[in-house]
């Protein structure tokens, strides 16, 4: 495998972890975040502090990244998730920008010039292992009562409440898990690039993650996987027209919301069972049409 191709695969694997987290928050719990790059930044810097300054093993760095990002998200959630209106959204926007500004001005960690010399611990193998763990844990979560409660919050908050669901608690759970995923992705990214800089985690990064979730489909894990892979490869293939890429993405996002709001996969999960069921439905529909046609003929 060429190292170029391997590099793109690794990047899409890293993106995937952040996207899975955001998929839980936006696709399943229905919350919108502008600040996920901020959680990635917290993860990247926490992990780098562990491995570079304290010389701790990489897995400790990853765990610290997840914990630090989760902790930060908990604080934001505590302040905003009980409030009605767009407070959460605005807070994530403010948070993402604030983290970047703080890191820009914090010379101890390299400031705006960035922090080089992070050990290259990230490998294709540990990315893939974490991807698999990430997908399995998320799939298990959304198909449990905890996941169903999050979906209920997205669907109809008041009904969820009177059905005994503590909506604050489940929004918080979605947020914290989601931030932990972003933290892990940040840790992997830092130890892949061996260099981190605050501007790597700008709002553009947050919106790119959201775009992937939306393209893959709100409420579909397999869609997020597909989205993360395709949308990381696509820009590499389309280098020549790169400046038009985001123009097209912007229009496509509006188009999806207007025409097919649940995204390309539309809440559909790609599993062997669902594929079989889909074909069974198609056969049934065909049979029903045939019956109807026969009936109409008979009626004439």
């Amino acid at each position, binding site marked *: 495998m060429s190292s170029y191709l391997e590099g793109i695969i690794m990047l899409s694997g890293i993106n995937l972890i952040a996207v899975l987290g955001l998929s839980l928050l936006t696709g399943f719990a229905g919350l919108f975040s502008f600040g996920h790059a901020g959680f990635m930044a917290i993860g990247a810097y926490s992990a780098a502090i562990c491995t570079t300054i304290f010389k701790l093993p990489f897995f400790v760095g990853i765990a610290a990244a997840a914990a630090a990002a989760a902790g930060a998200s908990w604080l934001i959630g505590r*302040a905003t998730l009980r409030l009605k209106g767009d*407070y959460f959204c605005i807070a994530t926007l403010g948070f993402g920008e604030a983290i970047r500004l703080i890191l820009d001005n914090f010379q101890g960690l390299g400031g705006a010039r960035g922090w080089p010399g992070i050990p290259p611990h990230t490998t294709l193998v540990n990315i893939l292992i974490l991807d698999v763990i990430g997908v399995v844990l998320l799939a298990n979560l959304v198909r449990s009562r905890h996941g169903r409660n999050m979906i209920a919050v997205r669907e109809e908050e008041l009904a969820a409440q009177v059905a005994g669901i503590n909506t604050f608690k489940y929004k918080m759970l979605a947020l914290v898990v989601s931030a932990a995923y972003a933290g892990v992705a940040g840790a992997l990214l830092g130890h892949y690039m061996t260099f981190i800089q605050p501007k790597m985690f700008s709002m553009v990064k947050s919106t790119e993650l959201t*775009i992937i979730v*939306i393209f893959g489909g709100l409420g579909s894990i397999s869609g997020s996987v597909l989205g993360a892979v395709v949308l990381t490869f696509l820009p590499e293939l389309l280098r020549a027209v790169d400046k038009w890429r*985001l*123009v097209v993405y912007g229009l496509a996002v*509006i188009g999806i919301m*207007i025409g097919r709001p649940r995204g390309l996969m539309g809440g559909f999960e790609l599993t062997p069972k669902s594929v079989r069921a889909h074909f069974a439905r198609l056969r049934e529909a065909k049979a029903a049409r045939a019956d109807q046609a026969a009936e109409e003929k008979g009626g004439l």
Partner: protein
Amino acid sequence: MAQFLQQMVNGLSIGSVYALMAVGYSLVYSIMNFSNFAHGGVIMFGAYFGFFAMTQLKLPFPAAFAVAFVGTAVLAVVIERIAYKPLRERNAPFLYFIISAMGASIFLENIIIATIGPTFRTYPDVFGRTSISLGSVAIGRLDLIMFVISAVCLAGLVLFIEKTKIGRAIQASAYNMKAAALMGVNTDRVVMIVFALGGMLAGIAGVFFGMKYTVYPQIGNITTKSFVAAVFGGLGSLPGAVLGSVLLGIIETLVAGYLSSQFRDLIAFVILIGVLVFRPTGIMGKTTEDKA
């Protein structure tokens, strides 16, 4: 003391431009109940409209100014028609509005980068660098003009909302869109007018930001401050948005003057966090209960 007064005046001037942004944003929020995150893109277009009207079309400042705010009013309405109206019509969840707004914002910023390019451009120097002295306080001519025009626009908006029929329809819709529709208010028209007004104010703010700083595709990111100002003043309240903006402008200028200019941008977020933790309804906001 003189320095303090000087900072206050500068803060008031920049705060009044923040108010133009924040009022436009709050106006839309009060009607539609969602944050129009494409507002920044409209402001950015205002800055470019004004810039090109002056440099390419060689228009004098007042004409270029008019081109900018008419252009952004039209732009804001077009965005509403394309990106939000279909969602409104099928009662889509708010999440979809926010995502659609994000799409519009990405589109606006990147269409400029793709066609005009990412370079920073400087407005022609219309007002000169001279300043007017009032005792020990020197006021830049641009700052003074920014403040006066912003104040006039805001006063005009208040008159429009308080005194005209359509203004009262806007008030009714902000209170309860469905009820207003039942009472015979054409809510579709109200939404259109609200976007046009918001767009107009955004265009004016865009020209001022372009003149005070420079023009570049990411200048719309400055709207983050209008969100903070709106939360600070009380989300959805127009007087709150003005008050929050002016205070934010003053606090920012004081921080830049007395502490460090690096903290200038950070202070907005410190305020945001403080408000969310201690008084989420902001200075003038009130809590509301959903009608079940």
